[in-house]
């Protein structure tokens, strides 16, 4: 029945186009003069920009979990590492405008009595280097953890627990002052990026469009990946890993590839997120963050790229709306969401619309 | 009395039992014969409740048990010795026996006569089930089923891969249970000669159906063998 699957494909494509058109609206409407009835506030632009970064994170989780069956509870760590890489660049860009006015050292280093910049801060004054690190550091960590885990065939919940321990360990480490990453407070008080002050409308719009562009690119990369034979192998690995081995494929290499790719996408999301929200601190490493991102994917519909994006937007919209008037209720609702999704919505929102025969 | 009527069972889209009837009466040994893979074990699992039948019904002592859970069937007096023995490898012999007390009257222990039937088990009470030899494990599996004091005993290929002297012991016990204790017995076998010595009646299965059934004396040896070896 190729007719139905073609229709389904067109519907999904239509949904993707619709989402991107809608996402173009906030910066455009924000540019309208103040007082215009259709004008969208700066706040909405910033919040939507944040959600776009979350959508990229969700996409990266979906690639690993929805397709390859690797449920990482540590993707928040890759996101945060990307964010820290960008944060380091932004800190260096403050220059002598800090409270202590030191030309090189960020405020917290002056405060902690650093005499010179630690070696691992070198190079971060260059934007391309920082962006590269935002991809490479998460990728390298994923490569290391993944290689250790996949090689010894650690799968399923074991892998989830390991990745959770990974982000937990990083959180503890980044909370330390002597790590050279600002400890508890992390990085904030950023001034400008690529010479543009961050608090200007053009910077806001630019960051927003950069995030949207990144979402489009990561979506295209993901789509290419999952629709290739590589993607079909991921699904095969997810459903019957050992059978794939008997066909002569090196399962470890495939899993490692997708895990590293996914981690780099998460790092990119984090790097875009930090200038938009203006702060990064060790709280981003908390295991709760990672697992919350997993539930976006589950809620939207894992194993479908559009589902992950939809999930990130809908859960975060719910969160923003609910926390504005009943912040205490949010965690109850989020907890309930976990239960409802796993028990009643195994295919997520997307599954409601498109029921596949089983 | 156990009566299974019109049992159908399917794995996915393929039917592995197609309208099978089987009756077991107290004090009588009913033997189900057939080659490998014709559905004998599936039928036993259906009677025990381990497989959900797609059609047909099973009654036991006048009560419809078609939808009853396996544990409830055990508690209703049906004992089961599965194919391949399936004793609990990490439990001791005594513990293996005691698991079946779940289906026995409250507060009862392992009956002494179990050790009369299988004296060898008495020496191994503290050994792990997995450490026993195949023949000993088979005896343990039967003893375990008897511990619950069942009124119907289902034995699924109890002689498979067992040395001849143990097979003789098992045959002796099966006959004793039916003839002296009045227990109903369903015995699944691949080999006619073993079945013929014991069985009161025989059902021969071929490809998910009963091809031939009747009292043992009425079934000519050649007809049965033809269905078993082809």
């Amino acid at each position, binding site marked *: 029945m190729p007719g139905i699957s073609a229709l389904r494909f067109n519907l999904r494509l239509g949904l993707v186009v619709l989402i991107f058109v809608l996402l173009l609206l906030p910066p455009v409407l924000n540019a309208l003069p103040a007082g215009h009835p259709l004008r969208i506030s700066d706040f909405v632009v910033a919040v939507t920009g944040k959600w776009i970064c979350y959508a990229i994170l969700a996409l990266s989780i979906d690639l690993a979990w929805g397709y390859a069956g690797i449920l990482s509870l540590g993707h928040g760590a890759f996101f945060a590492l990307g964010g820290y890489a960008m944060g380091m660049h932004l800190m260096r860009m403050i220059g002598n405008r800090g409270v202590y006015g030191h030309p090189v050292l960020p405020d917290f280093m002056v405060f902690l009595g650093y005499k010179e910049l630690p070696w691992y801060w070198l190079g971060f004054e260059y934007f391309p280097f920082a962006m590269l690190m935002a991809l490479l550091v998460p990728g390298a960590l994923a490569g290391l953890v993944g290689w250790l885990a996949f*090689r010894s065939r650690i799968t*399923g919940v074991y892998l*989830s627990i390991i990745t959770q321990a990974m982000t937990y360990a990083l959180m503890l480490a980044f909370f330390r002052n002597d790590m050279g990453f600002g400890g508890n407070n992390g990085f904030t008080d950023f001034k400008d990026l690529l010479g543009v002050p961050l608090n200007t409308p053009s910077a806001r719009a630019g960051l927003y469009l950069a995030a949207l562009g990144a979402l489009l690119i990561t979506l295209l990369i993901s789509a290419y990946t999952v629709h290739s034979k590589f993607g079909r192998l991921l699904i095969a690995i997810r459903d019957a890993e050992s059978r794939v081995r008997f066909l002569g494929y090196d399962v470890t290499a495939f899993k490692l590839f997708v895990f590293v790719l996914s981690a780099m996408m998460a790092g990119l999301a984090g790097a875009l997120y930090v200038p938009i929200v203006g702060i990064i601190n060790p709280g981003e490493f908390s295991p709760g963050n990672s697992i919350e991102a997993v539930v976006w994917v589950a809620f939207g519909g894992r194993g479908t790229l559009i589902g992950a994006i939809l999930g990130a937007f809908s859960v975060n919209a719910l969160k923003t709306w609910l926390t504005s008037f009943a912040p*205490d209720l949010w965690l109850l609702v989020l907890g309930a969401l976990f239960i409802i999704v796993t028990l009643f919505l195994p295919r997520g929102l997307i599954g409601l619309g498109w029921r596949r025969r089983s | 009395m156990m009566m299974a009527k019109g049992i159908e069972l399917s794995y996915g889209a393929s039917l592995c039992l197609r309208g099978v009837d089987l009756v077991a009466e107290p004090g009588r040994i009913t033997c189900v014969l057939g080659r490998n893979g014709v559905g004998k074990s599936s039928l036993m699992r259906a009677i025990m409740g381990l497989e959900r039948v797609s059609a047909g019904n099973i009654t036991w002592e006048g009560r419809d048990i078609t939808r009853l859970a396996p544990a409830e069937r055990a508690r209703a007096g049906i004992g*089961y010795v599965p194919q391949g023995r399936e004793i609990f490898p990490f439990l001791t012999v005594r*513990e293996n026996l005691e698991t079946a007390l*779940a289906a026995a009257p409250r507060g009862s222990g392992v009956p002494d006569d179990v050790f009369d039937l299988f004296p060898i088990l008495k020496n191994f009470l503290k050994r792990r089930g997995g450490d026993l030899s195949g023949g000993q494990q088979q005896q343990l599996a039967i003893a375990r089923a008897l511990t619950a004091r069942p009124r119907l005993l289902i034995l699924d290929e109890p002689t498979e891969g067992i040395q001849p002297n143990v097979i003789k012991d098992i045959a002796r016990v099966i006959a004793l249970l039916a003839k002296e204790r009045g227990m109903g017995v369903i015995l699944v076998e691949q080999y006619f000669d073993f079945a013929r010595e014991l069985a009161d009646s025989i059902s021969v299965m071929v490809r998910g159906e009963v091809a031939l059934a009747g009292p043992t004396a009425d079934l000519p040896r050649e007809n049965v063998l033809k269905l078993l070896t082809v």
Partner: protein
Amino acid sequence: MADGALLLGEADALTGAPANAAGASPVRINNRVRAALRIALGRLQIVSPDPAERLRAADGILRSRSAQDLPLLDAALARETVPRIRERLVLAQGAARLASDDEALKRAGIESLGASGFEAARTVLLEARAGNAALAEAIDAAVARIDRQLAFRRAGELLFQGLSLGSVLLLAALGLAVTFGVMGVINMAHGEFVMLGAYTTFLVQEALRGTPLAPWALQLAVPAAFLVTALLGAAMERGLIRHLYGRPLETLLMTFGVGMVLQQSVRLIFGAQNREVSSPAWMQGTLMLPGEISVTQNRLWIIVFGIAVLLLVMAAIRFTRFGLDMRAVVQNRRIAATMGIRTGRVDALTFAFGSGIAGMAGVALSQIDNVSPNLGTGYIVDSFMVVVFGGVGSLAGTLIGALTLGVVNKLLEPYAGVVLAKVAVLVGIMLFIQRRPKGLFALKGRAADQ
């Protein structure tokens, strides 16, 4: 009144006779006088019936380092029984001997100080080294001797702290070993069950406040916490987890959601601030073990409690009908059912059992940690590590795993600090499961593969 008599309060300081203050001229209190006074007082109070005064006196004599005090000290030492005061007296005696002119006496002082093993003795010895070049060798030997004793004591205390941390981990992980190890269910709400156990302790304490049962609040909280969390666990298994068997990743997410709901509900009901759970007197204070190793009472009791709970769990699994059913179901669910074992009921009970153990762990943690809604989150990752490290499905593995992680953690702390020690342990476990993916005590063979 004789000139030079000192008036202290209403009594003559020397004779103790009631004194007449009339005509006495006020003494100008300068530092020299003050020091002289203190020394004089110290010498007097060394025989005081009040231990606190005697301690102060011993300190005073120690500071003066005068050979003249030796007879006084010898006499006091012969009488003294309180360990802390004896310590000061030994130090003071050693210091006084070193201050004498007699070579043999000095050597005796070095000897006694070296044998004492006190850290303060080290200071006294090193101080005396400068002025006694001839005795430098003997002093160095004595210092080395003290260092050895100190190292031993520090190792002992570290070991104890490690065991203490290990028993906390053991308590937190035991329930998990049952639900994860036995049933294969990842319960991410386990930490919240621990937290609920701690809150149950708080509630029991509040409920019994002012009643004759109040001193027994902690003991009564143990069964109460077990019941509360076990019931909750049973409800959770029957209501939610049962529908997700065979889907471990979904179970993980779902139970995490339950944990969030529990934690936030507690926060809404009790508030986010810490609740005060008091420790009974018998859990307070410190205890001296042989070798001068000091241990805190509450930590000691938690070790005892951890071992008791472990033995209880082992006994329940080994000797009860429920334990047998549980083991049978784990090894072969289908066949267990055909033996008449109601597997659904066993599942619910097993989960309740594991949850109840978590509750009991909460009682113990209420004694050493803040009772707050996120009490459990700090233990959950560690508990999983213990179970993974020890080997899923093995209580012995859980015990060894918990104690090993606890001790290793504490041994690393002096070198790496609290946080890095923890990070190092996590990394170590990840490397360890490279070699043994199934943990220390993996079940082997066919039955384990299924």
